């Protein structure tokens, strides 16, 4: 490798190591910034559509924030009112749910005891009052699970605030970096940013699409099945889907339990589990081929490894950012390989053969 090509590689590796060290030690502080960056990154193509028509970026961003704020104010009476209504219903119907669950469990235990030898019979361990309290507590906690995923302060204040500035600045960060980059490496930097942009952008936009699809499909399905906590469970499933494959599992478990307690029958719970299985299947058959076509092409074992490493190092946030980081690593390796092999770059032999024909 020529000497001049070693310097940026070594600098790049040193920078990467420093960034990894900083992220590992400061990731709690970085969480709102990372989430804001992801949000700004996903929203920016929408801003770009208006910007391409000549509208000022600042005007579009302020307009977007005003529209979101207006939507929140308008929806506050309907969606929040609906959620509050659901909770009140739940409190009122809690004792009934508990009674149904108790009779179901009693019947199941009695049925089992009738078939088991005397020495193996199950004791009546379930205290009806305790079961009732636990059931009410668990179902009431559903909104808490939802908000517990992210800190409330970050979700409602800090993230929109940071996202606003990131959106206003747009591509200035990359432009500034390109301007400061030594001129002979500009094309390589463009190559790298372009690869990361395509891989990461498509993956993140794909995730948003999946989350929206899971929210809509599960909300409609749960409403049809008559589950009281449809809105909360759908939101929880949609948010969980940012960790690939988790959305349907979380929706099935929480929704299945909620439906089971609500109706007092296992069949109701299994119907919800079936609904989320169908949603997962639909996602796999309809959305994933589209997303994968435009996104990062990685072996499932690499996904698994990234999740395990991300979860081990940074907990839930690690799970959330495992694949985006994997996208970046893959883009860096692709670019490094492209630089390495381009030393031997030659034109296509087929084109060279065709070029021998005189220009007539």
């Amino acid at each position, binding site marked *: 490798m020529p000497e001049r090509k070693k310097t940026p590689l070594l600098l790049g590796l040193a920078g990467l190591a420093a960034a990894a060290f900083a992220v590992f030690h400061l990731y709690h502080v970085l969480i709102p910034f990372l989430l804001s960056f992801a949000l700004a990154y996903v929203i920016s193509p929408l801003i*770009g559509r208006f*910007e*391409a*028509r*000549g*509208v*000022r*970026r600042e*005007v579009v961003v302020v307009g977007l924030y005003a529209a979101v704020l207006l939507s929140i104010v308008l929806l506050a009476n309907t969606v929040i009112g609906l959620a509050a209504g659901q909770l009140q219903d739940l409190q009122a119907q809690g004792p009934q749910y508990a009674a149904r669950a108790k009779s179901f469990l009693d019947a199941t235990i009695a049925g089992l005891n009738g078939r088991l030898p005397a020495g193996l019979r199950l004791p009546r361990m379930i205290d009806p009052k305790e079961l009732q309290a636990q059931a009410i507590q668990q179902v009431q906690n559903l909104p808490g699970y939802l908000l517990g995923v992210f800190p409330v302060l970050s979700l409602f204040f800090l993230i929109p605030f940071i996202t606003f500035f990131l959106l206003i600045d747009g591509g200035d960060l*990359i*432009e500034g970096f*390109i*301007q400061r980059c030594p*001129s*002979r490496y*500009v*094309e*390589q930097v*463009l*190559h790298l940013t*372009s*690869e990361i942009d*395509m891989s990461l952008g498509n993956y993140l936009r794909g995730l948003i699409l999946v989350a929206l699809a899971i929210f809509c499909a599960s909300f409609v399905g749960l409403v049809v099945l008559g589950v009281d906590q449809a809105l909360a469970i759908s939101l929880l499933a949609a948010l969980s889907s940012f960790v690939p494959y988790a959305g349907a599992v979380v929706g099935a478990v929480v929704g299945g339990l909620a439906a089971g307690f609500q109706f007092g029958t296992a069949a109701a719970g299994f119907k919800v589990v079936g609904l989320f299985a169908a949603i997962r299947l639909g996602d796999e058959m309809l959305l994933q081929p589209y997303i994968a076509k435009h996104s990062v092409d990685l072996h499932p074992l690499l996904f698994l490894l990234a999740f395990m490493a991300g979860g081990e190092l940074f907990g839930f946030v690690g799970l959330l950012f495992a694949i985006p980081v994997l996208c970046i690593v893959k883009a860096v390796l692709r670019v490094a390989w492209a630089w390495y092999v*381009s*030393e031997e*770059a*030659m*034109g*296509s032999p087929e*084109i060279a053969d065709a070029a021998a024909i*005189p*220009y*007539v």
Partner: protein
Amino acid sequence: MLKQLRKIFFNQQFAARRRFLKSLALFRDLSDRDAGLLAQALHSRVYHSGEVIFEEGEIGRALFILESGKVDLVKSGATIFSVKPGDFFGEMALLEQLPRTAKAVAAERSQLLLLYRSKLDALQVSHPRIGVVIMAHLAQLLSARLRRFSQLPGSGAAPDA
């Protein structure tokens, strides 16, 4: 009043860049919106006098458009062409990744727009019309150059039909 409102809501600098792009032979048939999308795909960089933009023999990966200033294309120590504002060079990088056949040096403080190949590829996928227009003009440009070369005495090429 209307002019003031336009200034507030519309980016005059972006509009000027869009007009500039549409004035180039390579992009002349693009609509305003398509030129806007193309402008978003470009990166801008200022090169100071004497700064090397790329070396001869390096693998080309981007097309360069000179917005202002002057750039010299140098081969074996001799300037073979001086690029003026509105000209573009390095367009072969959009077709194949081959070594550059000359060195490019900023002869004075110059503002360049860079179109990276994969950005154009992405545009071709999302907005095929833009790709078709650019590729058609690039083919015309290549054809014109080849025609000119084949008409040179002693070029060894077959006479142009």
